[in-house]
């Protein structure tokens, strides 16, 4: 089930919210757990078993870590838990990739490929495994107390707003909220607005851009214009799709009284890749920093080791997104750029000015180059796209004029980029609640009605980060 579906909007959300608010406060974690399990098992009931197993094992390991007095014993339970989590993730996510890559190698030297079973990737596994790992490490480091009871922990792991596409939450940020959180008109209203914004980002904007991006990336030899229009469309689509989902997740969280961390902060105005990773998928980059980069040594072991740590962290981050060499290359790309910026002393902290336009433009172009690898099915289809971007396939301007739904899609592309560049300015304007605010609110509500009507007529459109 996805948020932008009739099943969710027409059935799940209204019934869940009603059940949640009807239930007595002490039973609300139960309602969250049941609702989340129902949400997850709508995809496949059999994989709910895996989610429950991971929950049990991590809860058990965290209790053992907490009650063990000796450090060595605590560390063993931590290692056990982390290895268990990574093994589950490794098997379900990377088994097919590993076998395919091995077979490719074997075939190239004339050997016989291995014929093994195909492993299905459970949705959301990358997110809930990372959450489980962060929980164990936080309990070990004593940064967070263990969950007071199994129910709260299970509800945290399965919390449906963020279960299948983040933000990657940490228990220490939510533990207080599980035991005590406020429900108010303010919060619920804020949650509704946030949800509507995310819903419109996804259904109205991202889904309108998808045909352009899909068309461009389907070309075997895209022209210069095809390639650039396609990557501009995909860059915007990915942002609105993913940030839209995060907004919806945060919005639903607010409706339930939770305040999640923010996941995006106008990433495409970044003036460096370093800054980009403070603005894009913030929860993931923070996780990688705290649970991978820093344990590897961070920047504390000299320059060369810092660069290596950056590369390793980003390659792992790339692999987290998907089991494909394209994601490894994407990770190498970003890791390499981060290392280069570190070498050049780029900090990415300065405030924005007109002089920021040049580095911001360069950064955006570098990010777009990365997105080509991110989007391509494999590196052999990414290369012709890069060739198109530099004009090796010609500059034929007619290549763009037969695109599907051309006029409305291109209008939306223009609107999307206007929003991307103008919203950082708009968000700084502190408008007090006046008649203007009321009009703005009514506009959002009407846009929500339009977006829901679009749901009626479009086919199933999952979130792009659903596949991770």
């Amino acid at each position: 089930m996805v948020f932008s579906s009739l099943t969710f909007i027409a059935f799940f959300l209204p019934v869940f919210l009603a059940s949640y608010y009807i239930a007595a406060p002490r039973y609300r974690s139960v309602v969250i757990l049941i609702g989340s399990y129902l949400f997850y098992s709508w995809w496949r009931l059999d994989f709910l078993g895996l989610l429950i197993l991971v929950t049990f094992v991590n809860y058990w390991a965290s209790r053992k870590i907490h009650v063990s007095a000796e450090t060595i014993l605590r560390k063993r339970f931590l290692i056990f838990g982390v290895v268990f989590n990574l093994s589950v993730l490794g098997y379900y996510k990377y088994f097919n990739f590993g076998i395919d890559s091995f077979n490719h190698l074997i075939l190239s030297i004339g050997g016989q490929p291995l014929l093994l079973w195909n492993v299905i990737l459970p949705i959301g596994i990358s997110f809930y495994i990372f959450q489980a790992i962060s929980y164990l490490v936080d309990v070990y480091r004593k940064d967070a107390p263990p969950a007071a009871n199994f129910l709260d922990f299970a509800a945290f792991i399965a919390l449906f707003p963020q279960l299948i596409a983040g933000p990657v939450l940490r228990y220490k940020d939510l533990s207080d909220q599980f035991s005590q959180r406020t429900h108010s008109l303010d919060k619920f209203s804020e949650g509704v607005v946030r949800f509507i914004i995310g819903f419109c980002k996804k259904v109205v904007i991202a889904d309108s851009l998808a045909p352009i991006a899909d068309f461009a990336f389907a070309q075997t030899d895209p022209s210069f214009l095809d390639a650039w229009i396609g990557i501009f469309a995909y860059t915007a689509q990915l942002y609105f799709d993913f940030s839209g989902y995060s907004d919806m997740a945060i919005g639903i969280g607010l409706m339930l009284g939770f305040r999640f961390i923010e996941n995006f902060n106008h990433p495409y105005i970044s003036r460096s890749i370093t800054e980009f990773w403070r603005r894009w998928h913030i929860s993931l980059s923070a996780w990688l920093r705290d649970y991978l980069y820093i344990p590897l040594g961070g920047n504390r072991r000299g320059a060369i080791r810092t660069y290596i740590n950056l590369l390793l962290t980003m390659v792992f981050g790339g692999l987290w997104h998907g089991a494909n060499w394209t994601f490894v290359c994407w990770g190498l790309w970003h890791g390499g750029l981060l290392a280069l910026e570190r070498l050049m002393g780029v900090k990415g902290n300065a405030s924005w000015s007109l002089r920021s336009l040049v580095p911001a433009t360069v950064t955006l172009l570098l990010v777009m180059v990365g997105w080509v690898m991110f989007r391509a099915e494999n590196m052999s289809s990414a290369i012709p796209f890069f060739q198109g971007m530099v004009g090796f396939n010609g500059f034929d301007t007619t290549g763009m004029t037969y695109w599907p739904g051309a006029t409305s899609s291109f209008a939306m592309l223009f609107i999307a980029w206007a929003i991307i560049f103008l919203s950082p300015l708009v968000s700084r304007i502190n408008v007090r609640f006046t008649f203007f605010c009321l009009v703005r609110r009514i506009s959002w509500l009407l846009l929500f009605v339009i977006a829901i009507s679009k749901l009626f007529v479009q086919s199933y459109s999952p979130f792009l980060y659903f596949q991770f």
Partner: protein
Amino acid sequence: MDSITKYLTVGFFSLLLFFVLVLGTATVPRLFQSEWADELNWNGLAKGKLTSKLEARLQEQMVFKEGIRSLWGTLNYWLFKTGQSGVVVGQEGWLYSQEEFGMYKPNLSAFNDNLERIFKYRDILSSLDISLYVVLIPSKVRVVPEKLGYHQLSTDMLATYEVVKQALIDKSVFAVDVRDVFQNLETGRAPYFKTDTHWTQEGAYASALALRNSILETCRTLPWSRAKFELSHGPQMALNGDLAKFIPLGYFKDIVPLEKERMSVPIVSKSEASTEKGAMSLFDDQGNEVVLVGTSYSAIEDWGFAAFLTHVLGTDVLNMAEAGQGPFLPAQKLIASILDGQIAVPKAVIWEIPERYMVMEQESDDLDLVAPKQLAGEISCF
């Protein structure tokens, strides 16, 4: 004002969700289908087959869906001159199939594979003394480019027809170029319908005539027994253009109308008296000497291509074209039927191929087809 905004937000949101819940509940009786009985078990539930069917069904059957769909369809068409994926909207009501625009550059690998298929089939037919005549149908985009508006074919795609034709001729495949006859149709007689992918009866007739003239030019005679067939036309009827389905105007079709086209279906019948040389006598039974194969351009009887061929070629043409399969699969099936003896060996096969399929990957699996004997692949009239 702050409180008003919040109450309005929460109230409106709640009412809207409640309304959609009511619509969803009203849709529930339409959801379940008897053929899902197989999925009503642990396997169906565990693997999510039942839930995915439910979601898809809900999407199809949601109450008010048709009304909303027609509203969006009308707005998109009226404001942006776009339809659903599959159609390209030109000027003055002209609609084009998105398939005809293809890629920026043609798929060369698919092109070469398809050419090889044609040569292979020609060789097999030649070894059975069957002449193959290919009618290469130009895309509507190519024939009526002036109505495309700002849409255009890429330069490489524009060259496709000529490249295909030349490749066929270079390998001695009898290929009929109908571009000129389409362009030279009389004013008021269009080769293509506005709201349909396919040719009009005029376009089909012009192609049939062009084929006949080409054969006569090459072979001096039509190499099969001939009879006289009379052509007449049925009553005028409305055309439901296949491209119009991609513009779901629904309840608003009278406000923003699409072109209402009409056509009459040709009817061919055999004359009682036949004075053609080599005409069949009453007791002759040689099966169909000419077989037509291809796509919906031939399979759909309304366009009349088979009837026109029967009339101009003077022989009862057996129509083995199929709609929705592309040109290669029906040809593969025809050849298999001939080799298996399921149909009598004809004298000639007319193969209608729309040009856009030449650069599309096909699902045809023709590895089992083998020519009974090797023959030189020359243009054969017999």
